[in-house]
């Protein structure tokens, strides 16, 4: 098994990194390239760059940012936002991304994940699923464009993506987004529905939240965005905290430890 990953998320709106709060409010952070370089220095295990308005605005996540960021990155980078064609996937990979994630297009074009996985390999193609806990407490697949939940049960959709050849699934808890009250452990439990790695996103507020979710579930990694843009060396601090109780993450290299 690979070690559990602590992943730094960068939410962007076009050229600007933002903090996202419950998918409703966005606070500007600054240049995404600077954030990516900080995450790299702080020994994030991976960086996820997500343009949260690209699909709604009919754009693609910025290739310029990826190009500039990867010039100095020594950390794997997964990007997404607005991907609709195989040619765009190729462009993003050539711009320096290691993997891409697909959300809306996976639902709208049944063949897309299959084709992308066939061409670039499953390890390169990640699915992003927004999940909302509804009033009854049920976890439902959420469409951020229409701001409504969808009928397909979450695990059915995860298994469907796996069959189409997806290499990893990111489950993003919309209701926990930006709240910093901890990961949704019930959502994390759904990781065991599939054999591909599952990553959890939304709600991280401190090192203990990572410890909780790693000990309670099978997830391969956990993301934080707002938490890691709050303070200097935030990722190293969290890793130090998690390492105290969970040896199954990557140790810090001496330069930052």
């Amino acid at each position: 098994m690979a070690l559990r990953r602590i992943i730094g998320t960068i939410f962007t709106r076009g050229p600007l990194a933002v903090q996202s709060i419950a998918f409703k409010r966005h606070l500007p952070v600054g240049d995404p390239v600077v954030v990516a370089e900080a995450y790299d220095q702080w020994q994030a295990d991976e960086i996820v760059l997500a343009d949260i308005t690209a699909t709604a605005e009919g754009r693609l996540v910025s290739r310029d940012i990826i190009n500039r960021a990867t010039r100095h990155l020594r950390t794997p980078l997964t990007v997404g936002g607005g991907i609709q064609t195989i040619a765009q996937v190729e462009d993003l990979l050539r711009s320096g991304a290691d993997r891409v994630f697909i959300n809306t297009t996976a639902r709208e074009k049944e063949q897309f994940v299959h084709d992308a996985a066939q061409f670039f390999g499953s390890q390169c193609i990640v699915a992003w699923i927004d999940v909302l806990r509804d009033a009854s407490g049920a976890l439902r697949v959420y469409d951020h464009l229409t701001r409504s939940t969808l009928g397909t049960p979450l695990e059915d959709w995860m298994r469907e993506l796996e069959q189409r050849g997806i290499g990893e699934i990111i489950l993003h808890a919309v209701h926990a987004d930006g709240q910093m009250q901890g990961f949704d452990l019930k959502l994390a439990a759904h990781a065991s529905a599939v054999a591909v790695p599952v990553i959890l996103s939304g709600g991280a507020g401190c090192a203990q939240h990572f410890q909780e979710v790693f000990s309670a579930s099978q997830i391969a990694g956990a993301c934080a965005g707002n938490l890691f843009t709050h303070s200097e060396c935030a990722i190293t601090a969290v890793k130090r905290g998690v390492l105290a109780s969970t040896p199954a993450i990557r140790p810090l290299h001496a330069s930052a430890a």
Partner: protein
Amino acid sequence: MRMRAAIIDYGVGNVGSVSQALLRAGVKPRVTSAAQDIAQADFLVLPGVGEFSTAMKALDGAGLTDVLRMAIRDEEKPVLGICLGMQLFASESEESPGVRGLGLLEGTVRRLPADKGTVPNTGWMDVRATNRSGIDGCYYFSHSYYYDSPPDQVIALSDGQRCFPACLRWKNIIGCQFHPEKSQTSGELFLAWFLTVVRSRHPLP
């Protein structure tokens, strides 16, 4: 004099990150598909992301298959294959039955067993050197297939239950299943080790 690296560009693979990593290591990298650049380089890097048959078709299409075989096997030019780039050193892969690889190393590329971990295998893993190279470290992996190699070519193994070759070496040919260009400090140390191997084989004026 700075060493010259030819990073083979055949349309698949993240050549930009590899190029930047070599630049930081003090090498003069050139991303190229030209036979002349390959002939002039002190060493080659064969990156690769994607699927075995797509990559072999791309190499064939760029007219590179025989150029690489000649440079690596006949001229014994040092080469580093990264991830799929290393897998292409094999004659065949379970990923693409019937498709011929470069056939430079013994062994077969096989699908990772699903009963001892996720497929794809994505993330960081501890790697143990089986010789005195000192390349032990924690590296980033992203793959669904692994190189099933005779032990005499293996110089490092992945740690844990699903133990597979992480690094191969046979004469001038070195391959790693992980991505040194994405493995932060461990990756930089690995590339530094690779460069000492290149220098020891080809002392520069």
